[in-house]
């Protein structure tokens, strides 16, 4: 259960951060290429907040060393899959745009 929450935090955290980058925002949102500065910071900050929450949760549950090991391991997995989605199927992430408009 905790690993599920942890994964969710990582997936949403990194996806939001990726959307705050102009290139990936353009890939996901085909209609509006330009990302407003305000939206950029909403994405970026909320992403970082989720990641931070993930780190805190992991350390709280597994202790400092194992917590970091688990968090970094899952972060690597999530970012790797995310980069593949962004390269080949960016429209999978478009639901986040509606959600955040």
């Amino acid at each position, binding site marked *: 259960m905790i690993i599920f929450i942890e994964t969710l935090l990582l997936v949403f955290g*990194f996806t939001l*951060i*990726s959307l705050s*980058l102009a*290139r*990936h925002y353009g890939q996901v949102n085909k209609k509006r290429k330009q990302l407003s500065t305000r939206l950029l910071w909403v994405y970026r900050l909320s992403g970082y907040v989720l990641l931070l929450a993930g780190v805190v949760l992991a350390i709280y549950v597994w*202790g400092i*060393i*194992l917590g970091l*090991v*688990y968090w*970094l*391991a*899952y*972060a*690597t*997995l999530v*970012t*790797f899959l*995310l*980069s*593949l989605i*962004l*390269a*080949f199927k960016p429209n999978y992430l478009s639901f986040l745009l509606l959600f955040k408009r």
Partner: protein
Amino acid sequence: MKPRFRQAMNWLHTWVGFSFGWLLYFIFITGTVGYFDSEIDRWMKPEIVVENHVVNQNELLAIAEKELQIAAPESPQWYISLPASRTPYVQIQWLQLANEKTNTPRDWHEKFIDIKTKQAKDIRATAGGETLYRMHYNLHYVPKLVGYILTSLATMLMLIALITGIVIHKKIFFEFFTFRPKKGIRSWLDIHNIFSVLPLPFHLMITYSGLLLLMGITMSSVIDFRYGEGRENHRNFYNEAQLDIKTQKFIDLPPETLSLQGVLNDAQTRYKNQKVSYIGLIDQDSSNEHYEIWFDKFEGIHLVSKVAYRVKNDKVEIEISTGKAGSAAEVYDVFEHLHEGLFANIYLRWLYFSFGLLGAAMVATGMILWVKKRQTNVKSQRMTSVISIIERINIGVLVGVPIAIACYFWANRLLPISIINRPDWEVHCFFIAMLVSIAFAVCRSIKKSWSNLLWFTAFIYLLIPLLNAVTTQHNILLSLQSSDWLMLGFDLSMLFFGACFALAAITVKEIKA
């Protein structure tokens, strides 16, 4: 940042990476495979019957003790391993001292106990998963010290390559997730970045801890200075540096009941939430006779070590090791455990494994990039042919190492059981296969050798489950029925890797077309 500085770092990254690229690739792959050394061992010893049910430990120990009495009455060290999740079977191991009369060297021997027939059975002589894993730091054929120095040097250069890589990557955050396919050299650079940046925590950890693990070799002159030269003096250093905190106490167990069973029962009641992985009987019938209990469940990153039982002044004394005395040794321990990943459960173990492969992929794409960049601005005819040779050898190495591993598995099944030095021959097959694939890549045209070798790799990996079914009594269905998860997992993994290589072969064809 000054452009000059970045240029210098770029140069360093390129040539440091290139000079040890093939060795690093070999180290990454064989080391990564080592995360599954027990699982590979089980596959390479098909005679073993797994035991998934709870066994009657007293009966089991009685059988094991009887068999050890028969096999090695004079051995100073007996070990009996109990079923655990990564080794779900019972094994007995003993140390055979060197005997000059019969000309046998000092060596460890092992047999496995079949619980159903209540007998010890021989296991085929095999190099097993351990030899494969050890290759990543002893390089097998060279003398040990040379192997350590070479791998240590490679690790040092790897660390330099990682750090210079971070320095020269201009947009590490902006291109964090970026992969642009089908754009030639741009795509290669993107994928090299993805393989390097995303698992960077793993790469830094594995490289730095790898460097630490061999520090006794690389920093030996420091030890020489304080403790003196030579193996004996160095042993003093290790004993002092790695000193365990030990606490002794007397327990009210009657000394005459001190036996394998008695010790195991006592340890299990004393440490209820830890699982015993093996029991040792050391220096039997001497003044130093004692029993050892080793625990299996690694709660956290600090391995819980052992408990020793001995008779002292007609009382039973237990000695518990609870961590290292020095804080430097504790740090070293954490890095060692992070490197070896022994604490990892099956999920984390697979993650470790995939990150190791990403590391290998990082080196591989780096080598391919080196070739591609040089091809775009060649100056002379001579350079063209030199680069072409390097490109060919590169293909041979990159595909050759996976081929070699598959051949190692094939050799385990196909070499005659009675052949002398069978474990050595398995390893010879490994390196012969690698040399043959390099030779093949050098002779064949570059366009074709990628696809030929990849298809061949896919083929031999896909056939491994079939080979297993034909040469032993194990096959995928039977493993499923008898809940032999390690055997099943190995066969399925081989099918998976075979499929991956087939996919790679198809992709290569598309890129060329």
